């Protein structure tokens, strides 16, 4: 039965090869053939996931060469099923969506190859297979994004993606080479076992090897998951076909979360790196969300929304909640795939009926006209702050009483509380005849979401990391000393509360500003509208490199 995992990974490859060879004979039937192969692969992956859920022990399968090893473990079976599920939806969607493309067959070949590369990536049991799959995902994505060969823009941004991914390959290759030199094997299982037995056995440049490798893995994950400064490709790659955008935002961009999870045994000995990962995730989440809010192009806003979500996912890893990051990537993947794939029908509906519905939500969200009539303000503020906190505490006590022993859980609770409070605050400002009824409903939805989230993430924890000692080690590795932690909590609370206060006074004054603050606001707006000048700086650097290259060629007479 273990051997079936090979079938799961190989079927999309076989599909790509057969389509390439027999495209002329099969004609338009290639799409249905590709869908059929993906369906079979998905069904087998689902069976294997079920088998893994019943407690089947992890296995390694050697494919032939000394290094081609596939892993059959909870992480690989779960992610294979998710990848194939999303890939299947994208395949089915593409059958008609891409029908008018001249390179119809080529698209399905690339889609199948991408599915295979992603599967090999999550199933890789050795460093070489992992590096190869990791590298190929970038190359295949470049060609998928450049499906429309007439569009210079599509290729321009596909190049941004490729070059960022290639930059992300560098740390992964370095990490693989360092691990091989230290442990004299490519097998991830053997390397992890040795690290668990003696984590500080090897050094590199005077530093523990585990920390160096963890830092390199973190960097590789940042490039793949569009973390701040390596994010520019994500919001701009919207010129590719919609199914590719769906696949990219729902699956490929999540690879960073997977990689950190795969190297979890390294990260439990690299607490400082986890803290740095948390900070990078936090910065990305803030910048991504900020940029999303200021976009007037909905596609770019979606791109920045994904960036923000990736920030949250990386942040979850940084606080030791590794399995929560996997749940996050799954939930976000399904959500984003739905958004991208339903975009066409939304546009179609809008074309048929251009009357914009003037309902409460529209008035509130689009026209930004909150309710002017208020119920007692102090009471509402107390409810706003207290209810989410009560729900979160209740939800987590229900799952594990010792949850508050972990700093990571507190950070998550804190974010949950802030989000919940903002939800209720926003609900309160909506125009409605019965504000209490609306508030009741929003509290109920918050209970469902939080309980669901907590229960599911706990289930993911038990499935992916069944050893309680390992789970505790993960959270402990991410912990920081109590004083620093308390100071950080106070600082962030003050920032958020002052944000609320500024918003409140802004509303009270009707957003009138003094001259000095107006200038400051305009500068800040310019900074955001230029997307923090990151793209401008990269463009300058690229132009400089090209000019330098050209100058060299002239000096050396093109020889």
């Amino acid at each position, binding site marked *: 039965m273990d051997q079936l995992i090979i079938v799961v990974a190989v079927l999309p490859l076989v599909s790509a090869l057969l389509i390439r060879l027999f495209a002329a004979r099969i004609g338009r039937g290639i799409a249905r053939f590709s869908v059929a192969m993906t369906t079979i692969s998905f069904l087998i992956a689902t069976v294997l996931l079920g088998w893994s859920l019943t407690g089947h022990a992890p296995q390694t399968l050697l494919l032939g060469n000394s290094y081609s090893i596939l892993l059959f473990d909870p992480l690989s079976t779960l992610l294979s099923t998710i990848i194939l599920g999303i890939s299947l939806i994208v395949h089915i969607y593409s059958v008609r969506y891409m029908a008018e493309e001249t*390179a119809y067959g080529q698209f399905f070949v690339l889609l199948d190859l991408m599915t295979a590369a992603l599967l090999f990536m999550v199933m890789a049991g050795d460093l070489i297979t992992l590096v190869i799959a990791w590298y190929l995902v970038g190359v295949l994505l470049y060609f998928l994004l450049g499906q429309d060969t*007439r569009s*210079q823009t599509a290729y321009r941004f596909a190049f941004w993606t490729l070059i960022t991914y290639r*930059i992300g390959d560098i740390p992964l290759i370095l990490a693989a*080479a360092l691990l091989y030199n230290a442990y004299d094997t490519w097998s991830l299982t053997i390397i992890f076992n040795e690290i668990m037995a003696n984590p500080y056995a090897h050094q590199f440049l005077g530093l523990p090897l585990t920390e160096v490798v963890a830092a390199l893995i973190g960097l590789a994950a940042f490039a793949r998951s569009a973390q701040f400064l390596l994010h520019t490709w994500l919001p701009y790659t919207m010129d590719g076909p919609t199914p590719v955008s769906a696949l990219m935002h729902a699956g490929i961009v999540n690879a960073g979360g997977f990689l950190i999870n795969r190297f979890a045994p390294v990260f439990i000995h690299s607490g400082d790196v986890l803290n740095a990962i948390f900070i990078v995730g936090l910065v990305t989440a803030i910048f991504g969300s900020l940029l999303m809010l200021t976009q007037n192009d909905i596609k770019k806003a979606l791109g920045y929304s994904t960036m923000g979500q990736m920030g949250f996912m990386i942040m979850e890893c940084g606080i030791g909640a590794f399995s929560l990051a996997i749940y996050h990537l799954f939930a976000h993947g399904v959500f984003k795939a739905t958004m991208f794939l339903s975009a066409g029908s939304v546009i179609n509906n809008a074309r048929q009926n251009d009357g914009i519905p003037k309902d409460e939500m529209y008035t509130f969200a689009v026209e930004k006209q909150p309710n002017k009539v208020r119920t007692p303000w102090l009471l509402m503020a107390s409810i706003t702050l207290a209810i989410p906190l009560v729900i979160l505490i209740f939800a987590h006590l229900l799952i594990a009483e010792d949850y508050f022993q972990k700093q990571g859980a507190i950070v998550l609770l804190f974010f949950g509380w802030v989000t919940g409070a903002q939800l209720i605050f926003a609900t309160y400002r909506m125009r409605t005849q019965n504000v209490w009824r609306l508030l009741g409903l929003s509290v109920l939805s918050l209970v469902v979401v939080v309980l669901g989230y907590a229960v599911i993430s706990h289930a993911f924890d038990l499935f992916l990391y069944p050893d309680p000692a390992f789970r505790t080690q993960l959270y402990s590795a991410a912990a920081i000393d109590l004083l620093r932690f308390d100071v950080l909590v106070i600082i962030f609370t003050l920032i958020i509360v002052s944000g609320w206060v500024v918003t409140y006074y802004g509303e009270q004054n009707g957003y009138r500003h003094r001259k000095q603050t107006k200038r400051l606001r305009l500068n800040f707006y310019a900074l955001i509208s230029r997307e923090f000048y990151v793209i401008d700086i990269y463009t300058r650097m690229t132009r400089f490199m090209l000019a330098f290259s050209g100058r060299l060629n002239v000096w050396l007479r093109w*020889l």
Partner: protein
Amino acid sequence: MLEILIIFIAGIFLPLFPLSMVFNAILDKIKQVWIRVVLFITWPLVGLFIVSNSNPAIPDWLLPLSLFTSALYALRMLTLREVNQWNGFLATSLWSLLWLPMMQETSIVLLYGYAISMSVPLVLLVLLSAGLEQRYGAAYTGLYGGLARTIPRFSGVLVTVVVAAVATPLFPTFFIMFNMIVKTVSSTPLVAMVLLLIWLLWSWAGTRLIQGLIVGRASDVKIADLDMMAVSFYSLMLFALIVAGIYLSGVIL
């Protein structure tokens, strides 16, 4: 003195800057396709033959010089528009790296294997470049563009050959580069970093070449695409390269 002379001569064939200019000057002068093919196959082999037969002591300064040569040509590739010239620069950048495994005392048979695996995609590119010259009179990026729409089979082959040439998995050059990095990262991490940057520049130059040729609207002028026989030949060669890459990985990794 004799050893220096041998290295000097070998530095022409396993290019070291500024001796590397000799190969590119010769390539620029040659117009016949079959001579270009022979040149691409034999050039590094001659260098390896000279070094392996005279067995000179390789001085330490050769390592930074070979890395510099490779990086210099990789960087210069970014702004080349003529396909044949681009191919020559990539060859220079690739072959100059052969000094590295030579210093690590890799067997001469394996070194010949490295040189041939590096050269085969370049030879295929020579043939494709000749195909472009035959169809359009010149093989320049950005000159006509839109090849993917005008001659889709030719473009498909061209893209795959470029991908193979710039050390993409599972082609042999990928495993050669990977092996060089594995062997240098612990002892000389700076060398590994430079190798990775050179590799990155190849990818960048490769995408610029691809974009300059295949992207754009279809030409109104009818141009003959590759026939199925030629496509089969290129596919077979590329498949053989992948098999060679997987085999080579089993030997060196």
